[in-house]
């Protein structure tokens, strides 16, 4: 509704290229409706453990979004995205303990620092691509796991260093603070959903404008991008900066959501699982990132907490799903599912049509 109103009121003043077709307006209205449902209705429909899971889905969908931008839009495969999330989580927690800056600023500061680290990690991408870049970024993920283990993240105590004499991994750590307007679980869930939506909006603005076109050009061919005047170095680093910023911001959200983040939560393997689920979800579509978040966080919850199945079985499912995507549906579920639904609809229509004349004949 809101999107349609904005469109009709703006139509008289905006130049022609900003005119939205009815399909775009409808899509905007559906997205807005879904967003409002997830934001307002979901907390009253489900229990607290479900709500925590949905918050994780939102956070990991942004991590998958970063992967999608790097691989789907620019063609650079990075297997260190969950490691960047843990870096963001660690920086967010440390900044929260050490400073008293308002929470939105805390998010921005965490995003900015993670952004710098992510760009450094992305530097090899200027020379390497494909398998080599994947290996380098995976090594980074491994190094982060080791580093966080060695410094006994979070090891309580205040300040930037946060080491306390009483020892590591105590449960007596003060919780990482949440924003004053959203201290409760439901309110903070809504806070996370809003920030997630903003991150998706940020990504959308990028892929739909000049950087998105430049990235598509680099993905197609670097020589052709250079010949088109694209500063390949700048745009590659820009992609890493954007992906790392978004991942850092949700890393800070994760720190405040779990309240006492633990190094053990972040395994190197998680970066690989994220890449697999992102590919299954679909790396060319923003929807794919949400599907990836659901696969990454909701399915383990369903398997383990709801159905009592060992969640390691999921790895087999992810493997099979990845194989299916690579073989038959390179666009992932985000592109395949609507096609399958359209095919199903056509089959149903055909079935009904073939039934109708015989029914008439019978009568």
């Amino acid at each position, binding site marked *: 509704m809101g999107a349609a109103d904005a469109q009709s009121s703006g139509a008289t003043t905006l130049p022609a290229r900003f005119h939205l077709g009815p399909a775009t307006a409808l899509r905007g209205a559906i997205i807005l409706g879904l967003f409002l449902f997830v934001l307002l209705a979901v907390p009253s429909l489900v229990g607290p453990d479900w709500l925590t899971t949905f918050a994780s889905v939102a956070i990991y969908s942004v991590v998958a979004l970063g992967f999608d931008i790097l691989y789907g839009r620019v063609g650079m495969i990075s297997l260190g995205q969950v490691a960047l999330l843990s870096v963001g989580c660690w920086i967010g927690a440390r900044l929260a303990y050490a400073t008293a800056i308002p929470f939105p600023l805390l998010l921005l500061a965490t995003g900015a620092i993670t952004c710098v680290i992510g760009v450094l990690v992305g530097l090899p991408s200027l020379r390497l691509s494909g398998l080599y870049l994947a290996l380098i970024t995976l090594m980074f993920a491994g190094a982060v796991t080791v580093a966080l283990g060695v410094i006994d993240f979070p090891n309580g105590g205040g300040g930037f260093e946060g080491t306390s004499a009483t020892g590591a991994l105590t449960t007596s750590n003060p919780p990482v603070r949440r924003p004053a307007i959203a201290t409760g679980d439901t309110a903070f869930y809504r806070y996370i959903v809003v920030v997630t939506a903003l991150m998706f909006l940020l990504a959308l603005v990028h892929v739909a404008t000049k950087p998105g076109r430049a990235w598509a050009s680099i993905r197609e061919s670097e020589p*052709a991008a250079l010949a088109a005047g694209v500063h390949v170095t700048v745009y590659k680093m820009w992609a890493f900066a954007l992906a790392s910023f978004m991942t850092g911001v949700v890393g800070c959200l994760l720190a405040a959501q779990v309240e006492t983040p633990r190094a053990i939560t972040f395994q190197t393997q998680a970066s690989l699982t994220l890449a697999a689920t992102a590919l299954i979800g679909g790396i*060319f579509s923003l929807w794919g990132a949400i599907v990836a978040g659901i696969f990454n966080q909701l399915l383990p919850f369903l398997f383990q907490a709801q159905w009592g199945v060992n969640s390691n079985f999921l790895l087999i499912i992810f493997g099979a799903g990845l194989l299916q995507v690579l073989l038959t549906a390179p666009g992932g579920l985000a592109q395949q599912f609507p096609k399958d639904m359209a095919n199903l609809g056509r089959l149903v229509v055909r079935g009904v049509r073939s039934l109708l004349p015989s029914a008439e004949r019978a009568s």
Partner: protein
Amino acid sequence: MIEVRGLTVRFSGITPIDDVSVVFPGGTCGLIGPNGAGKTTFFNVLSGFVKPAAGTISAFGENLLKMADFRRARWGLRRTFQTEMAIEQLSIYDNVAMIHEHSGAKRASRRADVLAALEFVGLTAPPKAKVGGLNARERRLVEVARAVVGRPRLVLLDEPAAGLPDEETEHLSGVIQRIPEAFGALTILVDHDMSLVSSCCSTTAVLDFGKVIALGPTAEVLRNEHVIRAYLGTEEDV
């Protein structure tokens, strides 16, 4: 005017361009030669992908070799490649607009310039259509539109007609002939289709084994016996 003096390119042991000196005066110029003669390498030097071992290139009085590769587009260099480089995931409009937005041309004129380029090449498909859904002919026209948008000064076309049927080559030929007067850009055409080269180009240079073996008015060059020998070979060569 493009003035090339003593241009030499060496790749470990091979010399694909060997002391080439050639002047392209203006309009549409042809660059022909057998496979492996060094035509695409010459384009790659102009684009900045290949650093020459020696020689100078002066383009409209400016030293082209001193310019960083990605800055040459802003200067006015455009090129097509032998393989298609139009981006399938983007619309026709976006494909052409992305060249415009890195060309230094004014943002306010982008829409008009892009649509003008599409009209110039005679593309009738809707600008919003994705390039992935176009046929070979339309994709080729998108490539040419990308090469002429945003104040080009030097347009390099690398086998633009390869694989096109005759009537579509004819349409393309008309488009290429009109580039210099419509955009004021010097156009260099590399192609194996001699009827396309002779109908488009007033001047033609012939490369063989990295050396210029003929240069002059196209009709004369195509009658030159060295050129015929380079293309057809001689009894001794066989």
